[in-house]
């Protein structure tokens, strides 16, 4: 696996590998390393288990309308009695107004996953940008960004998120923004360290000497090299985002008009599910959160193992 293997498909366009354009070479190399990565990932049992669990939830979320009509979320059309324990009709029991908890959990998966992923994208974009820039620029600018990261790193996450959510108001978009802008500093810190390593490599020195612009250096040389780390970190960050969404919704800061796992938990808590002993109502969304978070964690660690960017 040590020598770069050129896939035949690419060779078709240019018979002589040596004369292919640099871009094509890069593309080929990337594709090869992706294939290599997948081959390794497939052998990682825990990573694959995580992926499988995740696939189940993703399918459930995508096909939620197929399994349960939207009207199963309508309180006035609830068919069950309040707090019915699990039965054949309601495999996960009913909630406080008689809706099927299974339907709620399946529909809730949509919001929870979407918020988790979208918030992570925001967090990754901010974190990677600031991380690379603070590592690349050596002067006051890099220092200032580094300081900023330090500061945000210290501010306790949940209080900050609460304050931001209060300022912005309750909506789906806002909760995504809140989680996104509060969880980037960890990533930025990690990316910065990696950037510093990459920057000391000879080819970057060469590129600098050849007069490449800052943007060119950062996007063409640094970014591709920190990408694997970003990927591993993203997977782990999604799990944090999902937990954050659950917590904020539980505190009543989520979008009141949508159903997410966190908002189901809030509803259960405020409607007295604890006193009622309605373990299915509290348990189902919680178990979903644990499974999905665990799945992302396992996948993240598996990716980390394979790429092991710290060896670089």
């Amino acid at each position, binding site marked *: 696996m040590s020598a770069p293997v050129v896939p035949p498909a690419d060779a078709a366009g240019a018979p002589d590998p040596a004369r292919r354009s640099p871009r094509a070479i890069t593309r080929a190399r990337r594709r090869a390393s992706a294939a290599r990565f997948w081959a390794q990932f497939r052998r*990682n*049992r*825990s990573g694959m*288990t*995580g992926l499988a*669990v995740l696939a189940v939830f993703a399918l459930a979320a995508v096909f939620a309308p197929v399994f349960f009509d939207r009207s199963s979320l*309508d*309180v*006035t*059309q*609830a068919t069950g009695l*309040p*707090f019915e*324990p*699990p039965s054949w009709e309601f495999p996960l029991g009913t909630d*406080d*107004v*008689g809706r099927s908890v299974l339907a709620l959990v399946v529909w809730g998966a949509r919001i929870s996953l979407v918020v988790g992923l979208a918030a992570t994208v925001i967090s990754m974009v901010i974190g990677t940008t600031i991380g690379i820039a603070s590592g690349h620029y050596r002067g006051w600018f890099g220092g200032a960004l580094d300081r900023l990261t330090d500061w945000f790193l210290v501010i306790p996450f949940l209080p900050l998120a609460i304050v931001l959510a209060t300022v912005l108001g*309750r909506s789906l978009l806002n909760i995504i923004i809140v989680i996104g802008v509060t969880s980037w500093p960890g990533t930025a810190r990690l990316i910065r360290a990696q950037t510093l390593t990459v920057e000391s490599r000879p080819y970057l020195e060469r590129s600098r000497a050849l007069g490449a612009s800052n943007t060119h250096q950062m996007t063409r040389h640094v970014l591709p090299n920190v990408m694997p780390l970003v990927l591993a970190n993203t997977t782990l960050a999604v799990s944090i985002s999902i937990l954050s969404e659950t917590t904020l919704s539980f505190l*009543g800061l989520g979008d*009141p*008009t949508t159903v997410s796992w966190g908002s189901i938990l809030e*509803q259960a*808590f*405020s*409607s*007295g*599910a*604890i*006193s*009622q*002993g309605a*373990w*299915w109502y509290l*348990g189902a969304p919680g*178990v979903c959160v*644990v*499974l999905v978070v*665990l*799945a992302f964690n*396992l996948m993240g*660690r*598996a990716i*980390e*193992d394979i790429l*092991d960017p*710290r*060896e670089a």
Partner: protein
Amino acid sequence: MRTTRLLALAAAAALTVGLGATGTAVASGSPSPAPAAAEPVVFTVGMLGDIDSANPFTGIAAESYEIFQLEYPTLTEYASSDFSIVPGLAESWEESADKTTWTYKIRSGVTWSDGTPLTAKDVEYTFNRVLNGEYEQTNYGSYVENIAKVEATDDTTVVFTVSKPSPIMEKLYVYILPQHIWKDIDEKAVTSYKNEGTPKEPTVGGGAFVMVERKVGQYIRMQANDNYYGGRPAVDEIVYRIYKNEDALGQALKAGEIDFAEGLNANVAKSLEGVEGITTVSAVYSGFDEIAFNVGAALDDGTAIGDGNPLLEDVKLRQALQWAVDRQALVDKVLGGGGSAGSTVIPPIYADLHLEPANAFGYDPEKAKALLDDAGYAEGPDGVRVDSEGNELRFRLFSRSDSPTSQKSSEFVKSYFEAVGVAIDLKVVSEDALIEIVGQGNFDMFEWGWVVEPDPNYQLSTFTCANRSYKDGEDIYANLSDSFYCDEEYDSLFEKQSVETDSAARAEIVKQMQQKLYDDSPYLVTFYYDNYEAYRSDRFTGFVPQPDPDGALLFQYGTWSYESIKPVVKAEQGETGAPAASESGVNWPVIIGIGALVVVAGLVGALLARGRNKDIDSDDRE
């Protein structure tokens, strides 16, 4: 069955306390119960909110009023049986024939808890303090509006001179304060005066109990007043313990940490039903919830304000919406059955005043649709109705983040309205924020409720033109009106009832006003909710419901229960504090269910994590 037993018991108790409170002949010399000699009888009440202040000029929370009425007497009281007026500190009272003065006869030989005589002078002092004090009027201003002069002509007589006749004059719910204590607290000091008793220095009061300790956010302790004119209560001490949520409250009762749980929700109350030693009460209550419509926000001078959707000014639209909501379903699903379908703004708990409209709006979505069609709101392309100019029937409905009930019933109402082609944008805001929004008229509909006093004046005043928002300088301030209803006929009826001192004649006017509001529909009254209470019937007995027979046992207008409850004396009652609930309370299916949940989670987790050890080690090797 449980209820019938309770009813019999409560009825008997009501009878005895009725005598105790009104008849002075009842012996009050040796009230101390037999077992109290060695150990004080402590009655512990769990509630969900703390008092906001122990100063009767400052506190406005329901919990605060509960404390005030225990500490301080009032001239008259509301009977436990039916809210009729009965003697309190005053033995009798009389309106003069020319309707210009009221003469109150005060009980003689009454003393404050510190032994100082309690006389008509204290009454005079208290009312003058309210009359002359700006700050003091915040809580009691409505009682003294028509009072021109207060004078104690001797130790047992107080004469009130009134500027115009008013039915409120026999319901002066102003707490009589000891002059010898409060004269030292001037108009400046009173604003920050805490009035919290300590074990060494209890508050000085004339009611059944005085405060001996308060720990903010945690508990309040009250001690029986030996000098209470109604006779020293059988309970030596009341402890109010503050809980953060209904679950904790219910569990504390189960565990025996408290003897009484006030303000439970339906689900918690249900979970307590059938538990050995606990009796739950779904008490009819004086509160209602409504969907309020913005019928045309304007200032008290008629200047339009706010951004309410003008379509709601159409009474036909509002009436159609009244038919669209299944109120009984709301009672069943949102309240868990603890309440009744709503109609008018004076709840049925006040049987003499409540009007049950003959032309009641039922649940009939087809009729609602037909009415909307007739009113010219045809169905638009996407199912949302439009008026003749093509404006969509799309409204904002605000619900309160502070109340799960509000959010849930709003969700129901949204669904009902949309079923007849009226689109709703649900918005959830805090109550504080909603006050602001409503005051400025920036809404279409909102969900909230009122707790109605035995005297209907205040509730009815919330629909008068004069009580719409007002402007002071550049700022608009909210007043009592939250639907901005304004109707000349209604206003004149309001004036009429406010000077009618004959209660039967007044009730007639009040009913006419309810009918008017019902037809004009500024409110869609969703339900009258019950107040869930539960208590350790294995420890205390003798509660008095208000009204009889299915009213609240505590947090009443009056202190009837506190004065009559007694500890249950059991022969074998060895350990009082030990919670006996656990043995019978264990719900094995739940334990097994959770066990299964844990096992599943654990198994899946272990499975997922099995390959991990190797991976972690490779992490660590770096």
